[in-house]
């Protein structure tokens, strides 16, 4: 606040017409870059998002991992495949829901909506951020599984294809439901518990923390409504030996049903987002 004058005044609207608005693509890239930069500087968030699934995998794997589940599958492999699905959901659903709720309640969303940035650029930034985190998380968990629990990278192209579509459909379904879920917490302080508690329960009933065939039937039925159970099943079909399919409730990997459930959640998430998304806090 020095006493000198600024170099150029606001000018007239005719001056402005000559300078086009920055493109949505460029702004989306700028949003993505700043989101990723801010995320990796937030040491607590990084430790939470990447550390927790890896630590849980090492703990669970070390306690139960040497047991053979049956059909040439080790419990460590079951846990790793499930935890990869849980990791995808944590970097898409959990992180987005908490992050957007916090941005809404601290006024950051309102501030952005008061600038010329188009909403598509904001969401494009989130997509970039979620992709970077989800890929990193998956690589990390696969590495832990390979290092400690005899996880093997698939050799058949068909399995890589399965991996690709489960990964893409799963993270899309979780990201969209995460954006929708961001409207549930009423304050920035409550965002983490409000989102994390149901997510933790979901990981139990979906066979992430416990092999799915050890989950009580009614719990498994609840889990089957949500995407995570199907993502975990898809990841098992990628990383477990073929005969492991016998451990699944249906006795097969049910690829068609996995794709169907995830597609339904993508559509439902998209509808929920467009119906419920708000740029301002209700308070």
């Amino acid at each position: 606040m020095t006493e000198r004058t600024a170099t150029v005044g606001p000018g007239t609207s005719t001056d402005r017409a000559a300078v086009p608005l920055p493109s949505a693509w460029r702004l989306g890239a700028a949003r993505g870059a700043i989101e990723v930069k801010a995320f990796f500087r937030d040491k607590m968030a990084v430790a939470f998002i990447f550390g927790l699934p890896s630590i849980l995998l090492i703990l669970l794997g070390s306690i139960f991992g040497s047991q053979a589940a049956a059909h040439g599958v080790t419990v460590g492999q079951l846990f790793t495949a499930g935890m990869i699905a849980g990791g995808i959901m944590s970097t898409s659903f959990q992180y987005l829901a908490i992050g957007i709720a916090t941005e809404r309640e601290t006024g950051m969303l309102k501030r952005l909506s008061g600038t010329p940035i188009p909403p598509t650029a904001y969401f494009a930034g989130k997509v970039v951020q979620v992709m970077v985190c989800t890929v990193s998380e998956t690589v990390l968990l696969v590495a832990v599984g390979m290092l400690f629990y005899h996880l093997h990278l698939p050799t058949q192209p068909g399995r890589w294809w399965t991996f690709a579509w489960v990964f893409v459909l799963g993270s899309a379904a979780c990201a969209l439901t995460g954006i929708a879920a961001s409207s549930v917490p009423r304050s920035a302080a409550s965002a983490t518990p409000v989102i994390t508690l149901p997510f933790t329960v979901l990981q139990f009933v979906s066979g992430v923390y416990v092999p799915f065939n050890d989950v009580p039937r009614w719990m498994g039925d609840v889990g089957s409504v949500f995407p995570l159970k199907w993502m975990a099943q898809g990841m098992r079909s990628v990383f477990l030996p073929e005969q492991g399919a016998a451990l699944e409730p249906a006795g097969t990997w049910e690829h068609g049903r996995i794709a169907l459930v995830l597609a339904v959640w993508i559509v439902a998430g998209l509808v929920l987002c467009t119906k419920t998304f708000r740029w301002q806090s209700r308070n």
Partner: protein
Amino acid sequence: MDSGAAVMVRGLRKSYRDVTAVAGIDLEINRGEVFALLGPNGAGKTTTVEILEGFRRRDQGTVSVLGHDPGRASRASRASRASRASRAWRARIGIVLQLASTGPELTVLEMVSHFAGFYPRPRRPEEAIDLVGLTAKAGSRISKLSGGQTRRLDVALGIVGRPELLFLDEPTTGFDPEARRQFWQLIRTLRGDGTTILLTTHYLDEAEALADRIAVIAAGRIVAEGDPGTLGGRSEAAARVSWDAPRGERTTVETSTPTRTVTELAREFDGEVPGLTVTRPTLEDIYLDLIAAPENIGGEQP
């Protein structure tokens, strides 16, 4: 397309369920003017400003802000043509909002540079930071700023797009006296560049120091409007002449001709009048009268 006035409001109404927040407001803010909206909490100040900013829908009335209806901005994402028009409009206004102190893990310079990138013709980020006096903190994380520094950052983010019209909602709340004076200087600098400024404030001295015109809002209506010197009949209001009468008691008369009263007193006392004071109502006196009885004034426009 662009009419002369920066802001034109006619018959604006807004209710929340059965509570009337804005009960028929007319406003006209000229280009290049600093306009202050004064009023107690709950008077409809924030609702009015948020409608002008395109953050809130109105129930009734016509609103034009830089020739654009801000009501279209709030549902602009539906059609790309409307969206482009509303983006172009947003590029011409600046809004100073209060950011929570827990921002993203970015430095002041990174944040201001990021926002500068949203606009077609922004200020240099360093210039915006310098204008608000945060140059020494440009490399600091937002989370490490003090309350007053965070407010300065809010202002930098509001002006970095070089707005034609700037909305300032209680900008100096939490500033120390020196920071307020520096901030006032910034407002004068922006005004000198031709920026139109709509300011809401609780501080009457701030409105008096900065505003070309003031409107007082109470119970959803404008109860007075004018320049700081004449608002609410201030210039014609009766002056109070007080003195110590010979028997010792303090005497006060209200008069529209204080000079004559003083001349008579001087003759009466044959020289110095003991304890003589002549006062006119301060802006604060006028304001408190105006908001105390809005129903008496009944929303009549001055």
